[in-house]
């Protein structure tokens, strides 16, 4: 099957962020970047669909400056066959502008399945996948925690609050992937070495007009340090009292 996986390069979340001087973005000094978590699940899902289905081709797409090529190489090292870099100076906040660039590339590409992560872990908009589906006129399923494909039909499981549902849809389709599919595989040494030689095409991103912008960004107020009031069952009444009177959460 011909599958496209759209991935995003995001900062490693395991740091204390600072706000840049502009006040509208994080300070990028010293940040490390990697593939957004859910996109890793999407890449894994794409590889598994083809492994189960007896072959095909997976293309990874990433939009952004030259640095995103490193993230695309990582996807290639997992076993994805080829990569497309949609080049632009900076990734806009406006998902609609991004969706148009992706749709321009994906439309007419003959993809049976277009996968996204459920959301990017930096901006958390959850919007680009559904927007691309809309632009291409394809069915869209979001937050799939299980994905099976057979004979032109897809089946996805979605987690709900306290329940799950299974949906069916015709291919081609756009699916955004939640964790639970399977942990993204570790690239093998062979995979890493092979990734260097796989095709990576660079094209200018045909971004749509940017209509949504960030005006201010601020860090959450500092939280007070936690307090240990004691140990064992005897302390429970005191804990409940403090949660009611002091923390006022009960």
């Amino acid at each position, binding site marked *: 099957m011909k599958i496209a996986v759209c991935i995003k390069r995001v900062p490693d979340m395991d740091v204390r962020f600072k706000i840049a001087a502009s006040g509208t973005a994080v300070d*990028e*000094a*010293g*940040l490390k970047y990697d593939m957004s978590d859910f996109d890793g699940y999407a890449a894994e899902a794409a590889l598994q669909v083809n492994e189960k289905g007896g072959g095909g081709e997976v293309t990874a797409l990433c939009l952004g400056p030259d640095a995103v090529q490193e993230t695309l*190489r*990582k996807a290639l*090292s997992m076993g994805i066959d080829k990569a497309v870099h949609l080049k632009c100076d900076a990734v806009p906040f406006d998902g609609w502008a991004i969706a148009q660039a992706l749709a321009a590339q994906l439309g007419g590409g003959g993809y049976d399945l277009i996968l996204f992560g459920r959301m990017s872990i930096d901006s958390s908009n959850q919007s680009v996948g559904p927007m691309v589906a809309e632009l291409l006129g394809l069915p869209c399923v979001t937050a799939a925690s299980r994905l099976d494909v057979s004979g032109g039909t897809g089946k996805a499981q979605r987690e709900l609050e306290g329940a799950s549902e299974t949906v069916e849809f015709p291919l081609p389709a756009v699916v955004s992937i939640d964790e639970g599919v399977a942990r993204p595989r*570790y*690239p*093998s*040494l*062979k995979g*890493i*070495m092979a*990734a*260097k030689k796989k095709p990576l095409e660079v094209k200018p991103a045909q971004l749509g007009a940017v209509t949504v912008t960030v005006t201010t960004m601020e860090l959450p107020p500092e939280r007070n*340090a936690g307090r240990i009031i004691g140990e064992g069952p005897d302390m429970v009444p005191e804990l409940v009292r403090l949660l009611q009177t002091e923390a006022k959460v009960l």
Partner: protein
Amino acid sequence: MPTYKAPLDDMRFVLHDVLDVAQLSALPGYEEATPDLIDAILEEAGRFCAEVLQPLNQPGDAAGCTYEQGEVKAPPGFKEAYQQYCAGGWPALTADPKYGGQGMPHLMRSVVEEMMCASNLSFAMYPGLAHGAYHAMHTHGTEELKDKLLPKLVSGQWGGTMCLTEPHAGTDLGIITTKAVPAGDGAYRLTGTKIFISAGEHDLTENIIHLVLAKLPDAPGGTRGISMFMVPKFLPTDEGRPGTRNGVTCGSIEHKMGIKGNATCVLNFDNATGWMVGDANKGMRAMFTMMNGARLGVGLQGLGLGEVAYQNAVAYARERLQGRSLTGAKNPGGPADPIIEHPAVRQGLLRVKALNEGNRAFAYWIGMHIDLEHRHPDPARRAESADLVALMTPVIKAFLTDTGFESTNIALQTFGGHGYVREYGMEQFVRDARIAPIYEGTNAVQAMDLVGRKLPEGMGRLLRRFFHPVSAEVEASRADPALAEFVEPLAKAFERLQQATQGVAMRSMANPDEAGAAAEDYLHLLGYVTLGYMWLRMVKAARARLAAGADDRAAFYEAKVATGRFYFAKVLPQVHALAARIAAGATTVMSVPVDAF
């Protein structure tokens, strides 16, 4: 629970900015080893170590290995992690492509080894020993044995060991009694007992290749009568599968202070079938191929444990609030200041940081010379690198494990009482690190190898391979007055080293005990000077990056220069005490009668 993150920034700095690793890709056979590929490999290796191996480290220590009727099980989870390790192709990293390897430079192995030892030393030893067996077989084995066995070791399907020690023969291998009798069909039958065999028996692999030192019936006495044999746990079938069980069994496993997740075995050889590797009575030479590699590997164990202990100690010192800073509150909103504000805590952490980063540069520098030794097209350059590697092998082993142990100890101390309880994992680092100065030849033996064997070789030729680049670096750096605070202490320490070298050489000609009494201090003196040389190179590389405007990485390079400053001011001065001890000679040591103890 302790955590670990591969120090990729520092690793890359050493590889690219200090050592210019790109030059390796110009060597024949290493064309693929470009800097971007090296970075990609290190990143994924680091992720694997942090996410798969490190979480098994503390539970593996608690569970240990189990022994039942000759069968040994590694701690829970090790087998699955090992399968993942093999599925990822990691055993093949630097192995010969002819046998399924990826043929990457040796240096890559040093870096990945550091990560593995930092994340889980007990685990790392299983594939580490297998690699040693691969290396010895690759260098000394017959083509037939190589074709049969090497692909199994490269894929990780089979494990490996080195069997040297016997109950009565540790450092002195000349007196081993394990016998190998020709079987008439080209094979041999081995009988004897080996002890302290790391990874000697376990459930991670379907077969284990033991490389065993033994004596032929007509062998001369001493180390000139030792041969090396390949003894598989299961005799391989013609299709290369494990066949009949061979006469080698595990009698018991040791209950140890540390590295509890690695099985340390008593192996009984009872008429076991083996094949000779290398020439008859030349087994020590073959074993040294393995041991030299293993000694560098043990050095990396010291470094890895020093690094992981440091990472956790720094995290704790930033968060633990205790007492106020001597110069006024640094965290006025909190009940106390983080302990990292206290000079004593800082000093300890900086010492560990300076030693770790210096040791890393030192180990990778020698790791790169191993590649140059084997691959450089110019024979003169190959010889030069071979000399440097030979000289520094005992120094890497002993200096990195002595300072690595010291570092885990300082890191534990940072935690106060919490360092002493198991939950925080710091005491495990200390226990695990404690073996490294002992095995693969104790550090005292390393020092004797350095002073007794490596220094006199070629009338000091090996040492000159080190002295020349140090002199050149010092002279070149003196042109820049801004470097004076780094260069001048190094120049002085270097002078002490030269004086000590002359003194030891002269005195030990008259009395060999002089060499013995000076050896460990001399090794440390050479170690601190080497780190001084590496630190000067690092400071220069970091300053060059800052001068070129390394905006988003400026903090890293500034920290590098600051740590270098600490090294020259607070760590390197140790050389003066060492020089004084060396100059004091052997008399005060040897004149005390045994009865006076």
